[in-house]
């Protein structure tokens, strides 16, 4: 387990791990591990302001969790209408996926259609899709039914638009993902569950030097911390 404290406008992380023999993080730390279930839709909501790039890395970690949770199929399909995914980083990055299929539709309708088609296939474990447009009630339901019939997990990256309050969704879990201040070699994301069982909050850490990925308990201080609070 790690404890994060804040002083002098920087985060300090103290290693206090109650790890198992394998050196992995504490199993009590909340993570995507049990939350990203097969045959369901999961949404990562991100803020399109700031850099505005979708949370590709959290989506990749969630996809890996979904592949591990699925005992039948292992295929990953990434639907990337923006055309900005860099496939080598998926294939040989810190979360190795190996081979996957990349779909780059050009219109909003095609994006939704391709996502539904991929979810229906029984050989697909997870479909990661960037959906920047607003979904109708029918489309949302269609996505959910497709995931249920095919058995794949859908990881949808959706922007947190002004109209998000009235935006419809039919997801098993929804997560608000935002970048959090990191260190020189550590990049962090603050991940807050906004829908689904558990309501867990945690920090996702990626170490660029060692390639290690950690799920970190949010400190109690985080809620009061102005530095982390301003990013949420």
């Amino acid at each position, binding site marked *: 387990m790690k404890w994060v404290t804040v002083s002098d406008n920087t985060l300090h992380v103290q290693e206090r791990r109650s790890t198992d023999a394998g050196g992995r993080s504490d199993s009590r730390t909340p993570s995507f591990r049990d939350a990203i279930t097969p045959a369901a839709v999961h949404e990562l909501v991100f803020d399109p302001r*700031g*850099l*505005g*790039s*979708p949370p*590709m*890395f959290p989506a*990749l970690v969630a996809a890996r969790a979904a592949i591990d949770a699925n005992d039948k199929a292992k*295929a990953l399909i990434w639907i990337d209408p923006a*055309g*900005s*995914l*860099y*496939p*080598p*980083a*998926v*294939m*040989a*990055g810190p979360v190795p996926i190996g*081979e*996957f*299929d*990349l*779909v*780059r*539709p*050009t219109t909003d309708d*095609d994006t939704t*259609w*391709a996502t539904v*088609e*991929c979810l*229906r*296939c*029984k*050989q*697909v474990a997870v479909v990661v899709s960037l959906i920047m447009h607003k979904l109708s009630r029918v489309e949302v339901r269609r996505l959910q039914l497709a995931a249920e019939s095919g058995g794949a997990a859908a990881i949808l990256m959706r922007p947190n638009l002004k109209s998000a309050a009235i935006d419809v969704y039919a997801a098993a879990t929804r997560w608000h993902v*935002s*970048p*959090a*201040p*990191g*260190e*020189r*070699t550590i*990049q*962090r*994301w603050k991940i807050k569950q906004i829908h689904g069982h558990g309501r867990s909050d945690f920090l996702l850490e*990626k170490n*660029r030097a060692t390639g290690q990925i950690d799920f970190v308990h949010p400190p109690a201080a985080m809620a009061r911390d102005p530095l982390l609070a*301003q*990013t949420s």
Partner: protein
Amino acid sequence: MCIHLPQWPATRYLRRHPEHAGSPLAIIRSTGQRRVVVDVNDLAQTEGIRPGHSAAEARALCPHIVNVDWDPAADDRALCALGRWMNRFTPIVARGWKDEVDDAMPSVGSFVGATHASPAARASHAARGRRMRRPYKEPEPAALFLDLTGCERLFGSTVQIARHVRRALLRFGFRGRLAIAPTLGAAWAFATSSDKPALISTVKLTEAIKSLPVAALRLSPDIVSDLHRLGLHHVGQLLDISRGEFPSRFGSEILLRLDQLTGAVPEPLTGLITPAPVTARVSFEAPVEALENIWLVWEKLLALVLADLARRGHGVRQLRLTFTPDRGWGKPSVVRTIQLSRAHRDASTLLNLIRCECDRVDIEHGFTRFQLDVPLHEPVDESQTQLFERQYEQDALELEKLLQRLRGRLGPRTVVRPQLVESYIPECGWQPHQDESPGTTATLPHRPLTLLPMPQEIRVLCEPSDDRTGSPRQLMWNGQVHRLTHTVGPERIAGEWWRGHNRTRDYYDAQSHTGDRFWIFRVLKMLREDIAANWFLHGAF
């Protein structure tokens, strides 16, 4: 008859790209870190560039040389196409020869070299070791062999055939060396050893081969250089030596080649196989306008095509549909191509794909002629699809069918399976998967998941430094200011100058105060005596 085509890769490239005909050209092949010249044209040869030089040496010898990546598959296709054209002279046209020497050789070496090897065998074993370590391997020589037995009557005489072939090669723009001889080995030897066409009859063969150089014997380069060291330069000298002397010193290779030269060991030609096209078509007097009827037409045509393929044991890899409207409308035919990622012979799958294509065709006036071609088909493994594991097989096919459906609606380039490519330039680090080339599995440096299709110019404030190479401190993009708290870098990526990409980029992994991580780079450029830097945003982690 042997047609030897020297400088084939360069000649083929120049035929396709005539704009480079006036400049020196080098065909380059990348082997790991090295870039080696495989072939050159005449202009480059006069500059002193030879196959085996490195790309940097070639550029040093001739600064304005044109470098082209070697495409062995295209060379091979072109040679086969030329071979098919040569079918007008004889039904049997072979490309190169089937060699069993290479398969047999290592086993000899491993048997002898292990325990009680003679010095010569050990030496040749070591030579083979040298050969294996050597990174540069010569491409296979381009040659076509025509079996003219019995064909001379159609053209008058063999000399007439040679004249026709020579004229045809000149017309195509190829430089070929011709030789007609009773054996394959002799034809090859005479074609490669002189520029003049040679016609050797069976009677003269024994006498004529004596003056051939040993290099024309299709021996490995190490053996040829060993023979030269021993003072053996001509085949006649080899024939004078007793046959028992060779195997202990050089292995069985020399004797085999000599026997093939004289005809003592037969060497059959393996002809190019030209498969008959798989096609079916139907014409109507009145145009077919209803979509259901068009589907029915395709169903019938598909059944014909699949029956043909079933006889060959093949499955469809590519389908071409041609819709021809009635001539009165004066409209051109509509051609649609369906690509499949593996061979299929399942009628319902194929029919679904054809229906998807039909939906996108404008059928306002109907069509009178339908043609279904299968330009690409492959053997299909059908042993398991018939009986027990049908269900299992169909599950495995499901992903294939999904990808085909996606390709059908979104287009073939939109649905790809990425494959890693060894390249310094991040944008060139991957390509859509191709069946022929296995991808690299090299470890990748730290790279962002989001890479903008085109780097965006940004404004950056740097730490003060003399040569403008300080770390970035603040960047402005999209009207927003991002204060950078941490930067990792620079990682210098030099452009691949041989592709005309000569800008060096200094990449930084920069993190803003809000936690966004940018991948930005700087390009230095000289403005008179001042150094200016341009910054670009290329990705996000």
